């Protein structure tokens, strides 16, 4: 699913709102989240997950082609942590599909098939 697929699917569920407006809303959401991360602000979407900017320390690396030592500067990296509810929904979808060797090793407890 791409951003344009997302716009299509959202638009189909809100028939009282034009597709153009839906597009504007989706783009504004991503703009807002990008701005928040740029300001190193944490984003928490209940039921989905959270985004946080962490700093990767400067370190020494090596150019794999030449073997030359290079200094890699510190940089900010966005991290995503999946929310509990979504994490469970994604994993239970696997359990709902035909069992694998791993599922059998899990033991007797029957999961509530979602």
């Amino acid at each position: 699913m791409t951003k344009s697929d997302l716009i299509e699917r959202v638009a189909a569920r809100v028939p009282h709102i034009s597709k153009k407006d839906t597009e504007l809303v989706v783009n504004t959401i991503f703009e807002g989240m990008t701005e928040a991360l740029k300001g190193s602000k944490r984003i928490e979407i209940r039921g989905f997950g959270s985004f946080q900017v962490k700093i990767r320390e400067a370190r020494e690396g090596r150019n794999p082609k030449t073997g030359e030592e290079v200094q890699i500067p510190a940089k900010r990296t966005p991290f995503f942590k999946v929310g509990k509810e979504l994490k469970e929904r994604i994993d239970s979808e696997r359990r709902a599909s035909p069992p694998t060797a791993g599922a059998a090793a899990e033991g007797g407890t029957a999961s509530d098939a979602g």
Partner: protein
Amino acid sequence: MTKADIVEMIYERVGFSKKESAELVETVFEVIKEALVEGEKVKFSGFGNFIVREKNARKGRNPQTGEEIQLAARRVLTFKPSLVLKNLLNDDMPAE
């Protein structure tokens, strides 16, 4: 930033009522979640990709007791930020 802040932003920038803004924001995240639960790849150019990965069962260890345990196969969600987003977060830092 929380979902409420995003709703507020839609209300201010796009001009929908608070009720409509909340409905739209809720629908956007619900559609994304449903796609991921179905195992679909979600790719937002300029932001990043959300990909569901299958992890095989493996042996692990309880770090507190040292006891060996069997970790079941699972399905996990990963996020790979786009290069555009990563660069944007570092545009005040020296390049390379």
